[in-house]
């Protein structure tokens, strides 16, 4: 796998420098850390912090800015960041109104963020956290680690960020984030694997006519393999899995995200979006807002995921609020 990098061990640091140079009005890097913090931190709101392993760009640092995140912590590639870094992020954004942590449900992320939360609480900072687990490919059960968090996390950033920007208090911001998590489901598939630079080789392989269904965003194996079929058939399969878990009925309003894992061209994502809309129209479900693009990637993997979020009037309002971040902008009235 050819990569446009210098040394694998410098990729994370150089990437963060590249982001800081690209978006100096949006974000700055906390000295001696892999934490990026919003430039115009508002004095009077709940802080929203996220993060995770790197390799999912623009997630999460790309979502720093008005109406979304106040800081993001970048771990090594596909590896949760460590508690000390997360703790620095929390300290940097706390303005006395408390901080919400948006965590993707991976054992590593949950444990590292938990430790950071404990550290911050010992310093008297009020910290709440939510764990995103939108991926229906993974069986949910109280006996297991439960579902993974994937692209739906970006909608949590958007809506929790808007709630914080409106000045809502920590409890209410957390409650809102939890509503998003309760109302959204995702599922993905891959056409090709990816290679962690330090590992140097892909961690699975797929034949020229094979696809992997139910894949996460780390090159983990999915739930099963099948022959490559048409975009419509694949979309139908993912859609059915999502709806089996979270049924929708005529009159419901939703947001749709068709997320590219990295190498899949936008053209193909639009073709998939067409089918998703047709399926929803067939059910009498209205789409309030659609996101098509690369929001949560997996290094250079080819593939995509579909996310459906059921909306109510609060969620619609917050989704439509202004977001001004490098990777996601919404021009709203608030």
């Amino acid at each position, binding site marked *: 796998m050819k990569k446009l990098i210098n040394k694998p061990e410098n990729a994370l640091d150089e990437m963060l420098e590249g982001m800081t140079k690209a978006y100096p009005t949006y974000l700055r890097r906390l000295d001696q850390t892999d934490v990026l913090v919003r430039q115009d931190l508002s004095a009077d709101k709940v802080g929203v912090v996220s993060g995770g*392993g790197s390799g999912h760009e623009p997630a999460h640092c790309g979502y720093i800015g008005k109406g979304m995140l106040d800081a993001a912590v970048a*771990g*090594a*590639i*596909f*590896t*949760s*960041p*460590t*508690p*000390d*870094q997360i703790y620095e992020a929390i300290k940097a954004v706390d303005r006395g109104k408390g901080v919400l942590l948006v965590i993707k449900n*991976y*054992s*590593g992320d949950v*444990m*590292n963020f*938990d*430790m950071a939360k404990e550290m911050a609480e010992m310093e008297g900072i009020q910290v709440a956290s939510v764990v995103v687990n939108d991926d229906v*490919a*993974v*069986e949910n059960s109280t*006996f*297991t*680690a439960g579902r*993974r968090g994937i692209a739906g996390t970006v909608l949590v950033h958007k809506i929790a960020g808007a709630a914080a920007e409106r000045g809502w208090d920590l409890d209410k911001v957390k409650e809102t984030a939890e509503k998003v998590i309760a109302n959204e489901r995702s599922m993905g598939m891959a056409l090709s694997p990816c290679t*962690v630079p*330090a*590992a140097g080789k892909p*961690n*699975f392989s797929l034949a020229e006519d094979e696809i992997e269904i139910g894949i*996460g965003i*780390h*090159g*983990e*194996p999915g*739930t099963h393999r099948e022959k490559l079929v048409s975009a419509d058939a694949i979309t139908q399969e993912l859609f059915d899995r999502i709806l089996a878990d979270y049924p929708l009925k005529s009159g419901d309003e939703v947001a749709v995200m068709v997320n590219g894992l990295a190498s899949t061209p936008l053209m193909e994502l639009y073709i998939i979006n067409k089918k998703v809309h047709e399926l929803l129209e067939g059910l009498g479900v209205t789409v309030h807002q659609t996101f098509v693009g690369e929001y949560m990637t997996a290094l250079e993997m080819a593939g995509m995921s579909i996310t459906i979020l059921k909306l109510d009037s609060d969620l619609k309002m917050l989704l439509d609020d202004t977001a001004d971040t490098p990777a996601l902008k919404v021009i709203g009235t608030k």
Partner: protein
Amino acid sequence: MAELNQIIGALRLMAETIEKNKEHLTELDGAIGDGDHGINMSRGFAFVKETLDKGGFQNAGDLFKKCGMALVAHVGGASGPLYGTAFLRAAMVLKDREDVHAADYVQILKDAAEGIKMRGKSDRGEKTMLDALIPAYEAAADAVQQGKSAQEILNAAKVAAAEGAVGTEKLVAQKGRASYLGERSIGHQDPGAASAALVLAAVADYFAAEK
């Protein structure tokens, strides 16, 4: 009875062992995880080594605390907080202590396992590092009961951990990334159990070589 410089020696061998098995651990993780366990452990233990090189430890507890902090701050992923927690629990057992006895070793294994259970919300049989660590604790405790020598106790832990790691092959993962695979995780050894077995083997091997 082990003195501070011996413990440091054992920790050095641990770091070397991890470095030597970096690719192997990464491959195990590639099969049922995200292919970085060796990379994570090697990064963390490089900082343990740096910590050991720096020196200046007040006592065994301080030594384990500093190494534990290095692991927490540099491994990341799932294994970082877990190994970090294990070391910090060891530090508590050895608080203000200059030397370490066989009974301490058993207590460390016990408390480390308890710490991991709590932090990981996990237990034995879920195809994790606990499936190496808990059997190692039990075997060591047994050996103490039977009045075995210090080296025999260390060896008992090493053997049980290795068997436990191999035993994870037949388990269905219920915690960590491998759990997403469900039944498909069967037939693969858990990378965290494999690294735990390596860590305990390094301890036994170090003291065996000292003789």
